[in-house]
């Protein structure tokens, strides 16, 4: 009797910490009588600083929250710092800007929907799905307007693909600037996308014989628009309404977006509302003024859509240093728009010697691929690097090799090898070697 009373009192005192839990009146009355016992327990029970074996923890000696306490689940409150972050000095405001995924705190190839990097050109529209329409017209036999219900009736496909903004790493062309994995590489994320093949929709409307290009356009204020060659559209593009099993997030284009696997993220137009079929590209602002690569001779490259092979070590990194000499598992991510990652090599001496890392299943086409390699750190200074090789045999270049061809002003498509400097205290810094 006294034991159960004590337990009830503990439960009640824990519950009192939560505004959402109503303490039954009957229990409150019992608590008065149990006050002495409860005080005795708190003096002999677990404290925060010794809440390890042999002591027990509070959460192991009490009743937890019930189902639907959080009807839409949330991470542990201890993970509150694991969030998308921006570089406030980079852009005029947040509406035409970017945020970075916290790669240093993620552990798989799938980016949680809440942490998927963002890129907006006119802010995030709050689209009402029942008012959203997809219009397909131009050089087609049957121009149509589709509701979301219509789109969901078509045969569905799910695939896992990364999206990378081609400006990922763009701030590092001239030199190491940002001491952070999140800010040097966080404009890449990966999800399982579900929707309908673009080829199915194009078959539905019937292409006229002159059809060679598509204009894809968003419903946001920027009416973000890009031209895409028909071959790619018929090959592997998807028009998707779901991301990692749930409806797209507004940040990712709710209720409908395009996925152009392996190509620069900008062409995977969000809030997709119009597809126009034509015979030539449109040369929109986003494929002329932006998303073109300025070379050292003043010439510019346009329509550089492909994401070339790239990799980065995600542990250790500036945000997650080493905690003393000993055996570690170096971990990282690799990706390529050219299909599958074939190999990843890791160097701990600044690129003098390399070892082949283990690729972790699944190794999917145009998806993030995890790699690991064991490393016994002797506590001495080290330079950690990773180098991806894709199934075409393309080898991820050094920054020096890229700069030799492209200079330092091309902003986009910096897929160079990242160097992390390891200091004797285990701290990690973003550096470039010469």
């Amino acid at each position: 009797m006294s034991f159960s009373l004590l337990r009830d009192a503990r439960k009640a005192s824990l519950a009192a910490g939560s505004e959402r839990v109503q303490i039954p009146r009957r229990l409150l009355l019992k608590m008065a009588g149990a006050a002495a016992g409860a005080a005795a327990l708190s003096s002999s029970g677990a404290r925060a600083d010794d809440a390890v074996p042999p002591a027990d923890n509070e959460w192991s000696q009490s009743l937890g929250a019930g189902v639907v306490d959080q009807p839409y689940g949330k991470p542990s409150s201890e993970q509150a710092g694991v969030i998308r972050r921006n570089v406030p000095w980079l852009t005029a405001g947040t509406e035409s800007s970017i945020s970075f995924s916290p790669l240093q705190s993620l552990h798989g190839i799938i980016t949680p929907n809440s942490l998927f990097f963002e890129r907006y050109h006119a802010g995030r529209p709050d689209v009402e799905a029942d008012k959203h329409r997809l219009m397909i017209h131009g050089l087609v036999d049957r121009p149509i307007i589709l509701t979301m219900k219509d789109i969901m009736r078509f045969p569905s496909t799910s695939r896992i693909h990364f999206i990378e903004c081609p400006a990922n790493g763009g701030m590092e062309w001239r030199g190491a600037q940002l001491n952070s994995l999140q800010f040097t590489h966080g404009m890449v994320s990966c999800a399982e996308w579900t929707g309908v093949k673009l080829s199915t929709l194009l078959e539905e409307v019937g292409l006229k014989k002159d059809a060679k290009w598509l204009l894809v356009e968003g419903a946001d204020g920027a009416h973000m628009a890009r031209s895409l060659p028909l071959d790619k559209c018929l090959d592997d593009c998807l028009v998707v309404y779901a991301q990692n099993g749930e409806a797209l997030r507004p940040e990712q284009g709710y209720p409908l977006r395009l996925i152009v696997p392996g190509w620069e993220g900008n062409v995977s137009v969000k809030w997709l509302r119009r597809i126009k079929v034509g015979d030539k590209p449109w040369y929109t602002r986003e494929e002329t003024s932006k998303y073109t690569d300025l070379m050292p001779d003043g010439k510019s490259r346009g329509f550089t859509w492909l994401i070339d092979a790239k990799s980065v070590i995600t542990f250790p990194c500036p945000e997650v240093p080493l905690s003393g000499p000993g055996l570690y598992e170096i971990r990282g991510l690799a990706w390529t728009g050219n299909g599958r990652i074939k190999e990843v090599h890791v160097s701990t001496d600044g690129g003098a010697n390399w070892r082949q890392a283990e690729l972790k299943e699944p190794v999917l086409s145009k998806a993030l691929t995890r790699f690991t390699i064991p490393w016994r750190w002797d506590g001495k200074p080290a330079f950690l690097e990773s180098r991806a090789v894709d199934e075409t045999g393309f080898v991820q270049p050094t920054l020096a090799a890229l700069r030799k061809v492209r200079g330092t002003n091309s902003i986009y498509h910096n897929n160079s090898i990242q160097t992390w400097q390891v200091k004797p205290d285990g701290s990690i810094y973003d550096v470039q070697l010469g």
Partner: protein
Amino acid sequence: MSSSANLLPVMFAAALLAVNAVPALAAGAHKPFGYGTPATAEQIKGWDIDARGDDGKGLPPGKGDVNHGAEVFADQCASCHGTFGEGEGRYPKLAGGNGSLTADRPEPTVGSYWPFAVTLWDYINRAMPFPTPRTLSADDVYALTAYILNLNNIVPADFVADKESLPKVKMPNHDSFSWQDPRPDTTMKPCMTKCVDPSTLKIVSTAEGKDLTPRTTGPLDDMQPK
């Protein structure tokens, strides 16, 4: 009696079709699903906003001159882009930068970088003004286009922009663009041992101490523009 006897083969054929329908669908048969509704000419007209950069296809009727463009610009655009397109704060600079593309710090603007004049019309029409896109008339968009081209000394002060004149404007940087991706443009070999002499390695750049990195723990940083 004879009618019900005739029905049998029809039903049998229908059943066969139903069985066949699934693999045919999976194989991508050309028979349309028939979902959605036909887009009417009026519906298409409302959303068909694009104007093609290289030949102006899609430009609507209407016109605008440099002087009117200056008025609209002062009213609608100057607060971000500056009265003469010089750009306020971190908002884009629209004019100047000529000859800067090979400089250490290039200034890509409409005048120094953009390859097509019609793209300017298309972009203003689809995305500007930034807080209130799609609120300008076609005439105002033509006028703004004329004004910005004039700011860049690409068209004279008496230029009138319309669907005939705009595609004929030759942009100074037009010929500097190639539209074929030349990559791969690096050919690294996957060397595995003794690839470089470690004693020659030195740090040529470090992010340490640069004070450019927003914090990556705790609440979001509000680090101010530098």
